[in-house]
């Protein structure tokens, strides 16, 4: 089995007012990669390039031992886009029949019905009667029922309540348990990624700022709250960005352990993914 489920090398895509890349991103086999970034950072663009929806202007994309443009390779891919549904007049049974015709021998009716039961979806009910969460669950059932090797999720948990999100996260962890399956998921709900992701890739204004192991990332970054004079003693490469307020400074720092050794009496909490994004975004806004 290949070491990577997907590998993007030097991928670029140019639009009138936006350029993505060059981006180098790999999805190791058997792992969950969380893709974060502000609105308009290029996450959906990147995922569409990987899934074969659009073509990159430069670079190469490898997907599950083949290429996104190859229809046979896409048979091993399961995709859930936030706003792409089946037409509302259909029901789950009709969706299943369409997908069975598309995926042929890979389609597993038993698995599909199993997911429908697990998600509490009525196969005969029209999709217009489904809530948003139910539609996403159906999309997921359709994406999983043909045993994909890579699941690509674009904001698949957006707008869902915590209970449903929890169920889906458990499902994702089950999915990768056998090490043959991988997930690449973009989400604004960073708490979900902190829970399930193995690594985090941060896309910012079309550039990949980092792709690191999640636990190491959360260990490495910290939010330092101190005065200006304390900040001045820190090495420049430790500081990502500082917000100065009336009561002191709040800074995103790298090498949290080293900072705590420099300034033992100062508060330096572990940074969440949200903090990392806010500070990087603030730095570039300035």
């Amino acid at each position: 089995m290949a070491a990577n489920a997907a590998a993007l090398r030097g991928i670029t895509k140019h639009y009138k007012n936006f350029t993505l890349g060059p981006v180098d991103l790999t999805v190791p086999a058997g792992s969950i990669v969380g893709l974060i970034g502000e609105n308009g950072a290029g996450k959906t663009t990147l995922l569409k390039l990987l899934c074969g929806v659009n073509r990159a202007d430069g670079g190469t994309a490898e997907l599950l031992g083949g290429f996104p443009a190859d229809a046979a390779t896409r048979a091993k891919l399961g995709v859930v886009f936030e706003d792409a549904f089946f037409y509302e007049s259909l029901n789950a049974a009709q969706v299943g029949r369409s997908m069975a015709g598309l995926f042929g021998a890979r389609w597993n009716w038993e698995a599909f019905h199993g997911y429908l039961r697990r998600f509490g979806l009525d196969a005969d009910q029209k999709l217009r009667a489904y809530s948003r969460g139910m539609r996403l669950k159906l999309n997921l059932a359709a994406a999983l029922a043909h045993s994909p090797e890579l699941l690509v999720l674009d904001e698949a948990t957006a707008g869902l309540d915590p209970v449903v999100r929890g169920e889906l996260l458990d499902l994702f962890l089950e999915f990768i348990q056998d090490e043959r399956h991988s997930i690449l998921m973009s989400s604004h709900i960073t708490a979900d990624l902190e829970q399930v992701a193995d690594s985090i890739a941060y896309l910012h204004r079309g550039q990949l700022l980092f792709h690191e192991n999640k636990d190491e990332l959360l260990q490495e970054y910290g939010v330092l709250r101190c005065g200006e004079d304390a900040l001045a003693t820190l090495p420049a490469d430790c500081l990502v960005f500082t917000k100065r307020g009336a009561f002191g400074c709040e800074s995103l720092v790298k090498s949290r352990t080293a900072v705590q050794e420099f300034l033992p009496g100062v508060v330096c909490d572990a940074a969440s993914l949200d903090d990392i994004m806010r500070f990087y975004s603030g730095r570039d806004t300035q």
Partner: protein
Amino acid sequence: MKGLFAKELAILTTSLKRNVLFVALFYGFISVASRQPYMAYALAFFFTLICLSTISFDENSHWDTYVRTMPVTPTQIIGCKYLCTLGGLVLGMLAATGIIAIINLVCTVWVSEPGAISFPADVAATLLVCGGMVLLFAALLLPLSYKFNSVNARSWLFLLIAGFAGLGGLLIAILPAELRGGFITLLNNTDEASALLMLAALFAVMLLVYGISYRVCVRIYEKKEY
């Protein structure tokens, strides 16, 4: 490709079944009741238009983006649309023929109205003309829909039709009267069999145009960004 046809059929039967049945029955009833066989030919256009309308359903649900992540090629995706549209045309032509057969039966058995009876040659000729026009309409609309989206495509199509009609009218206007007269005389002097053959040839040309449209549409779709 089976899955693509299954999806098209599912949409047509769930979203449009009621509309289709109502219009078909309405047209059929009016056509039979008023003994106006020419109304029935509109069904060829109607059924084709119904099949063409699935493109807007795909756009609304973003299926057109989603399907590109699946194991189907652009040739198959576009091919399915073209075949379904052709199927709609065939269904419409069959429905028209059925209604005309009922009118003929009514006019023979119950109401003596020989003027409303359609002869097979007339039916065949009219179906060939209608079918050819519908094929041309679909051949223009499909690539425009993929190039500009289904709503803008209609505007472009009306512009094209207006352009062609205007150009055609201008050509006829500037043609010398002898040529115009000669052409009309030629048509009047053509026997039924030859006329049918000409119309069949024109229909075949329209099928060829439809095939070229398919090739162009595949190219447009391959380059399209979502």
